């Protein structure tokens, strides 16, 4: 898939940091405000995919390759499983909270929920980029 015109490229390049920052905000404040791991990860993936569509798939693949996305998705899944096993080892059940709770309303509070949201956000963002790649390459393989 080739890139688009210079207007689309400039708008995408200027809009990318703000969209990425909004997604990171929704992931990091998942335990305080509406949102959480899944919507924030979707917004991060949408910002990266917007950059891909503007600049063409060949240039994008050098920056964020198939292997990068696959490794990031596995790291996100591993973070969720390791947090759950912490609960089994030190607490009672899977995903039992073992960290200090802190005060309500502050950023560093709510035990293991922010870490869990970070894992879910990483997994969702990398997984949606992987779906994007898979659709492009699956249809390309069908044409040849």
């Amino acid at each position, binding site marked *: 898939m080739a890139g688009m015109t210079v207007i689309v490229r400039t708008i995408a390049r200027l809009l990318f940091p703000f969209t990425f920052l909004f997604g990171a905000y929704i992931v990091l404040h998942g335990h305080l405000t509406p*949102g959480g791991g*899944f*919507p924030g990860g*979707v917004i991060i993936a949408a910002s990266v995919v*917007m950059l891909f569509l503007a600049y063409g798939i060949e240039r994008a693949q050098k920056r964020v390759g198939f292997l990068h996305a696959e490794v990031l998705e596995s790291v996100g899944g591993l973070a969720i499983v390791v947090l759950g096993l912490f609960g089994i080892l030190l607490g009672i059940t899977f995903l039992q909270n073992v960290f200090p709770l802190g005060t309500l309303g502050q950023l560093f509070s709510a035990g293991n929920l922010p870490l869990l949201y970070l894992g879910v956000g990483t997994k969702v963002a990398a997984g949606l980029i992987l*779906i994007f790649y898979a659709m492009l390459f699956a*249809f390309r393989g069908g044409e040849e």
Partner: protein
Amino acid sequence: MSLELLIQNALLVFLFVLCLIAIELKDLLYSVIVLAGASITLAVIFFMLQAPDIAITQAAVGAGVMTVLFVIAISRTRRQE
């Protein structure tokens, strides 16, 4: 009928009209863009029903990722119905 209920019913009618337009259009790219507009309308309705969590998810998935995936699928197949 209060103003909030009136706006909500108007948004529901607008959503229905947008979905009908998306079905009836013959150019599939226009149909996908109208469907993204319907998704944003549904997100506003969710927000008025005091479910901001669902509204954020609906706006991000419906208008962002779903539109991109439909556009890729159209670019790999035919554009006209």
